[in-house]
């Protein structure tokens, strides 16, 4: 009887009729390969944890999104939202596909320049642009999206002093029927603030109003909200045409399309409830096409789509550090990655798959990260096979916001690799080391040592 395969002993009470709060049972199908690359090889070559990006999936997402809009509307331009994932390798995939850059800080702005994006194809959003930032953007002929009156007046003064010209747009916030309303950025449509800002810009010789911008929220589950937003921007555009006989070059509808992740608290899987890119495209383009804007003066439609283009193009590979039993009998599994790397675990129930074959037995468990901190929970409850120390897992759809919002806290950040179109892997960001951290520290003489 020797040589029997061992699986740790397991017993589970059978369903007694109450609904299972652990939801669907699809998660334990093992994912042994990412595209054609074995997870085992990734861990052996690059360590665990490790972020893995798919070039193929990014290009596919981009091309699908472009197709959804271009089949409905004549002039479409995407601008890659740097904050969503500003790894140069990722940005350059988007730029190679034809995407401009959308940035919200001077750091991101310089990163875009460094990637070779021409200044006139950089959209500069965000509430924090210094005078020096604005000057640089003016000199590069970038599209400056003004967020508030302080910025508007500062830019006006700066242009008057330098006798330079700037291409500007304003960010408009508005009621689209989705709450809470994002009214902290830009100028409000309903209360007339946006119109006041437009009037001020139109009175400035040095400023050319080239477009209007809005970004109504993120992970928007309502395509109709985009119809409302587009309608309000069109209304402003038509009024500008009427009053000043000025046609705008573009309307920028921002980002916010949902990705197929599942929001916490939702019983339905993300993929089953989110609108498709076609739904969003239809809502936006049909509104603009049906507006009072003349056919021969249709503005270019800009989109700053972030998460919907990149979320499902990356995975996080990780390993089990330990399993334990909590006081109430629940199983807990400790992983080598936590909210330090998976910031989005705060609002998503990320799908986690084992990376090796298991028997059909599964158990409910809490998934913890490695931080010695109570907040470090990846999944409050998930049903997975009987994981053991050293087993690998794959977390799905982690391409948006994690590789920018991750934190160096307690642990150092791991490698990020990309799988290219031929299935070859490349490091696109090295793992951090103690030296990385120490490089930025300084020790005053009297704090340079101790003798315990």
């Amino acid at each position, binding site marked *: 009887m020797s040589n029997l395969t061992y699986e*740790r*002993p397991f017993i589970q009470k059978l369903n007694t009729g109450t609904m299972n709060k652990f939801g669907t049972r699809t998660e334990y199908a093992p994912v042994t390969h990412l595209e054609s690359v074995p997870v085992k090889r990734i861990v052996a070559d690059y360590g665990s944890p490790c972020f893995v990006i798919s070039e193929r999936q990014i290009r596919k997402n981009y091309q699908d999104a472009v197709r959804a809009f271009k089949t409905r509307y004549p002039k479409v331009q995407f601008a890659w939202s740097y904050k969503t994932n500003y790894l140069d390798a990722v940005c350059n995939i988007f730029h190679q596909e034809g995407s401009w850059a959308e940035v919200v800080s001077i750091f991101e702005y310089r990163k875009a320049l460094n990637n070779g994006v021409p200044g006139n194809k950089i959209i500069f959003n965000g509430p924090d642009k210094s005078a020096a930032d604005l000057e640089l953007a003016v000199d590069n002929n970038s599209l400056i999206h003004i967020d508030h009156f302080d910025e508007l007046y500062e830019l006006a003064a700066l242009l008057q002093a330098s006798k330079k010209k700037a291409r500007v747009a304003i960010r408009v916030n508005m009621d689209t029927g989705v709450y809470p309303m994002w009214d902290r950025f830009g100028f409000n449509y309903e209360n007339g603030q946006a119109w006041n800002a437009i009037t001020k810009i139109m009175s400035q010789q040095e400023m050319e109003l080239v477009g209007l911008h809005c970004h109504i929220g993120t992970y928007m589950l309502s395509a109709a909200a985009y119809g409302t937003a587009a309608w309000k921007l069109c209304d402003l555009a038509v009024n500008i045409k009427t009053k000043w006989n000025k046609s705008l070059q573009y309307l920028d509808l921002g980002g916010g399309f949902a990705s197929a992740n599942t929001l916490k608290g939702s019983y339905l899987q993300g993929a089953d409830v989110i609108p498709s890119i076609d739904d969003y495209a239809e809502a936006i383009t049909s509104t603009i096409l049906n507006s009072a804007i003349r056919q021969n003066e249709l503005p270019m439609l800009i989109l700053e789509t972030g998460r919907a283009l990149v979320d499902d193009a990356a995975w996080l590979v990780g390993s089990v550090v330990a399993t334990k039993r909590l006081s109430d009998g629940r199983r807990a599994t400790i992983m080598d990655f936590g909210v330090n790397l998976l910031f989005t675990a705060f609002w998503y129930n990320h799908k986690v798959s084992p990376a090796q074959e298991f028997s059909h037995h599964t158990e409910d468990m809490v998934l913890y990260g490695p931080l010695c901190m109570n907040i470090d929970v990846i999944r409050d409850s998930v049903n997975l096979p009987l994981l053991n120390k050293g087993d690998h897992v794959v977390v799905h759809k982690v391409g948006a916001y994690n590789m920018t919002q991750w934190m160096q806290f307690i642990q150092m950040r791991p490698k990020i690799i990309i799988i290219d179109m031929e299935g070859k892997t490349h490091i696109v960001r090295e793992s951090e080391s103690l030296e990385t951290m120490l490089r930025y520290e300084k020790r005053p003489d009297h704090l340079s040592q101790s003798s315990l």
Partner: protein
Amino acid sequence: MQLNKNIAISDSGFIFNPSTGDSFSTNPVGLEIIRLLRENKKKDAIIKELTGRFSIDDSTAEKDLSDFLLVLRNYQLLNDHE
């Protein structure tokens, strides 16, 4: 440490406790341990059985068994009265 009497065990790993009406499913290793408990085997003896039958070391067997016994107690399948 004693498995509750009356518990019905099927070969496929199906377990029924008539005194509470609860039913359970277990995997082959779990089933084996429950059988050994029914034979009144003590912890050390069970560990020996496990390491003899499967290619695992003592510490794995001990760790997994302790955890399993905890769950059995939680499910009121095991009591500590001798």
